[in-house]
């Protein structure tokens, strides 16, 4: 029996290392140019879109606002006009001051967020310094169940909670006098409580928690500085 011979295969042609690196470099450069071009080309239009969406959301919670100015409140309690960039130090809270046609402060709009049934529910609320209460809310984003959780957008009885939701601060101006909280449908007794939608309690609670957390953090920083933003800058 003859010894089996291994069939000799032609050695596969090896690609030189430099070719591989150069190709990858070429592709990366080309793709980089396309991406940067698309970014630069779309930037102004996207920012304009964002501004329109924000203004629409604010004028929904503070109807009649003529001019909107973005502010930021640092963790130290200083308030300054927001620079527009996203590079503010951690702990900085953003809010928007809305002025009427005469240039007087109408109210403050800020965002709150809390975990809902499906995903985070982000709400925008309008705060009136005059009554120290919340005068309107709008939903920024949510993925709640259609027909159930998304009633927070349409249920008039629920929205009536936010015509004058009490968010007064306590005596030391360190926190809210009363925690904003969603209570079971039909059991609301105080102006700082939210009458939950029957069947959509989790989403209602998320709205309450989002407002409470944001107001607890923002209002103690805002109130001592209200003078500063009182006039249209």
């Amino acid at each position: 029996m003859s010894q089996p011979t291994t069939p000799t295969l032609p050695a596969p042609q090896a690609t030189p290392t430099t070719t591989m690196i150069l190709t990858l470099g070429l592709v990366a450069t080309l793709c980089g140019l396309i991406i940067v071009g698309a970014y630069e080309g779309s930037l102004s239009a996207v920012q304009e879109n964002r501004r329109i969406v924000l203004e629409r959301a604010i004028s929904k919670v503070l109807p009649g606002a003529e001019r909107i100015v973005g502010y930021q409140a640092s963790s130290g309690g200083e308030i300054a006009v927001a620079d527009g960039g996203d590079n503010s130090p951690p702990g900085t809270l953003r809010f928007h001051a809305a002025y009427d046609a005469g240039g007087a402060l109408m109210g403050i709009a800020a965002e709150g967020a809390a975990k809902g049934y499906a995903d985070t529910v982000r709400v925008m609320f309008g705060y009136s310094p005059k009554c120290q209460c919340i005068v309107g809310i709008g939903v920024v984003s949510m993925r709640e169940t259609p027909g159930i959780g998304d009633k927070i957008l349409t249920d008039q009885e629920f929205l009536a909670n936010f015509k004058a939701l009490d968010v007064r601060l306590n005596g030391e101006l360190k926190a809210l006098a009363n925690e904003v909280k969603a209570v079971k449908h039909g059991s609301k007794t105080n102006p700082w409580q939210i009458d939950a939608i029957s069947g959509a309690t989790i989403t209602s609670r998320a709205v309450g928690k989002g407002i409470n957390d944001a107001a607890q953090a923002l209002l103690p920083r805002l109130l001592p500085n209200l003078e500063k933003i009182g006039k249209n800058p």
Partner: protein
Amino acid sequence: MSQSTPNASARNQTWDEFTEGLWRQNPVFVMMLGMCPTLAVTVSAVNALSMGLATAFVLVCSCALVSLMRKVVPKEVRIATYIVIIATFVTVVDYAIQMVSLALYDALGAFIQLIVVNCIILGRAEAHASKNPPWVASVNALGMGLGFTVGLFALGAVREILGAGSLFGISLFGADFQPWVVMVLPPGGFFVLGSWLLGFAWWEKRKQRLAGLQTPAERG
């Protein structure tokens, strides 16, 4: 794809390439690829259509570029280059959708970025575009992309009509209609997809019976 003789009707071949994805090898109904966006974003006709067109754009652009570069890219690094090319056009589409509508951008959510890992696109780049000239690759990709769009639209339209009583946001049945909410929830996606597949299988069977064929249909 056989490269036919030069004098064979080129137009027929191009049409063949185009209809492959549109009908014979439809990504949604025949190849069953890209099921993740198919089930997730088809809650309304607008979402489905936009997702389909965004994917088609990425598919055509990346297949054209992959095909243009097919002779310079060594096979050892081809997957990396394909993914970089696909990711590039997904980024472009991402910005384009933000330019058109932020509401649409929010509605489609992470599924825009997830086009990068859509198996139709990498599959086309690897199986077709890397072996064919740019024109053929683009036509084939366009057919595939439109086929995907048609598939998504078929799901999105049915789900919106049944689940919300509207089409393109226009109410169809008036105020008395009680929406069939499950259709816009995830299970509804499976119900509608299953029904469409059932319809396609029945159509195939019927076609075979009429043609007197005995062989089972070849499925991709």
